[in-house]
């Protein structure tokens, strides 16, 4: 539509319009100025410094990829990345399928009941971070859990069995879904609300049922939001820290304090003083998250200004 407007502008005022646009673009920059010092100080500079640490040793001398090969050979490296991969896969899968599914389901017939459900789904969002882990430590303790019958179904009679290392990726994915899904459902629902009624009506008049409308019309229109959610969820997934850290405390060390890659980096830095190794692991994580982000941005056109 904007393109049409632009196209219909008479050629005579073209030069003036160009100058105006140039001026406007400077104003655009001006609006971002208050944000830039924060971006630089707490985003870009630390990032550059981390890169520097990753390719140098503790005296500041250049060592190339040495920190990377050294940490990959660490016996804790592969298990930690394996855990994260498994966890992130489960968490992303559940997030994309269930959050989008539930949002579409809620949006299908908006009424009072819908807003009650949306509110109920959101409630655990208040309990993120350490609070959510504490709640789930209780939920996974067959002695006190309201879901103990479910736990028994999975042959779990003791708390330590609930947090057996093999089950942890699933447990953490469930906790993350429990706290995170509601917020994203709110966001997706909001995004669905920006779809003009006329579009939906038109589709309905053309004979589309609610399922077709949801999958063929609504889903493509909230594409940008889904992409955005996926990128963020992927990144937060690879950064898992507080959950295994608290489970480590509660399991008396049965779950290692280097269960996730982020924990491994933390331990290297703050316990062994190996900042360079820690930086190398962080860079590994960034590269993984970046590759994923680039793929998603490219495939969904997240950066385009039109739409």
């Amino acid at each position, binding site marked *: 539509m904007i393109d049409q*407007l632009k196209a219909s502008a008479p050629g005579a005022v073209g030069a003036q319009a160009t100058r105006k646009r140039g001026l*406007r673009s*400077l*104003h*655009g*920059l001006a*609006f*971002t100025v*208050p*944000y830039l010092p*924060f*971006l630089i100080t*707490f*985003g870009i*500079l*630390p*990032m550059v*410094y981390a890169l520097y*640490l990753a390719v140098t040793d503790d005296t500041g001398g250049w060592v190339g990829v040495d920190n990377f090969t050294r940490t990959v050979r660490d016996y804790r490296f592969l298990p930690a990345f394996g855990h994260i991969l498994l966890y992130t896969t489960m968490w992303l899968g559940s997030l994309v399928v269930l959050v989008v599914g539930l949002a579409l*389901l*809620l949006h299908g017939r908006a009424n009072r009941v819908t807003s009650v*459900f949306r509110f109920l*789904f*959101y*409630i655990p*969002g208040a*309990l993120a*971070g*350490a*609070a959510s882990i*504490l709640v*789930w430590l*209780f*939920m996974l303790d067959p002695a*006190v*859990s*309201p879901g103990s019958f479910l736990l028994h179904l999975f042959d779990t009679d003791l708390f330590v069995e609930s947090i057996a290392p093999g089950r942890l990726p699933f447990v953490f994915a469930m906790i993350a879904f*429990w706290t995170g*899904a509601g917020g994203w459902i709110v966001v997706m629902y*909001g*995004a669905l*609300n*920006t779809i003009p009624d006329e579009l939906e009506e038109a589709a309905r008049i053309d004979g589309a049922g609610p399922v077709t409308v949801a999958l063929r019309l609504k889903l493509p229109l909230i594409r940008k939001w889904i992409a955005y959610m996926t*990128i963020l969820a992927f*990144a937060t997934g690879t*950064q898992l*820290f507080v959950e295994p850290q*608290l489970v480590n*405390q*509660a399991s*008396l060390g049965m779950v290692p304090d280097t269960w996730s890659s*982020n924990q491994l*980096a933390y331990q290297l830095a703050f316990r062994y003083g190996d*900042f360079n190794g*820690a930086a190398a692991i*962080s860079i590994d994580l*960034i590269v993984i*998250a*970046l590759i994923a982000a680039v793929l998603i941005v490219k495939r969904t056109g997240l950066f385009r*200004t039109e739409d």
Partner: protein
Amino acid sequence: MRLVARGLRFVILAAFAAFFVVPVIWLILAPTKSDEALVSRGPFAFGSLHNVALAWEHLDAFSEQIYRAWIGNSLLYALGATAIVLVTAIPAGYGLTMADFPGRKLILTLTLIVMIMPAATLVLPIFLELDALNLIGNALSIILPFAFFPFGVYLAYIYYSTAIPRDLLDAARIDGCGELATFRHIALPLAKPVVALVFFFSFVSDWNNFFLPYAVLADSQQYPIQPGLSTLLSSTPSFNPATGGGGQQVGIFRPELALATLLAVIPVAIVFLLSQRALVRGLVAGAVKN
């Protein structure tokens, strides 16, 4: 057929609602029971308010009322940082949408890259920076890093680029509004829902942030509530039998831990209720729809 579909829809929604809500109900009821009653009585049994008072007494006595200090710190850090976020992120999101200025893609890309940086990567350099600025041990050492909230910039950016028609802003400009006036009188009022969203997500993410304070703060008196809860967990004998004797001494058992968790959530719940109307009205309101 229609009825079956509707029934099915309701069953699915109700099942998920149970999954989301049951643990919360359990948590609310837990402090009303003693530690023994938690095990012996039904999970949804109500004990007595007296037990809640007792649990609070124990919690409050822990380390000379340190729990109150943690909550106060969290409020200070989260509100201070969120105020700065609102002033920086909303205009930035707007500026990034309105024109294709040189460096725009770079800012967007860098913001996104930083957003997906692992916390551990940034925290160590940030720690060194704060040290260089002589801020370690100061509340600003938490507030300033928290005030950098790229997520909010993206929320504002996506909102402005999808939900607000350019024609509307152009119309204001044609009517003689300057850029600042266009922003103040048109773009900002239209963005109320996204201001609420940014306020909400920023406050919640600061409130729930564990990693930065855990790594940066040395004095547990300065802790916000998240690392505080972790400290409490390691004093609870049922999850940490090693501190069994310690548990007896400090009086922190499961009901106290549940109460501490519950109280820690209240501010977030309040902020949610405050933003709820804007969230629910959703990103709909405004001039997009007639």
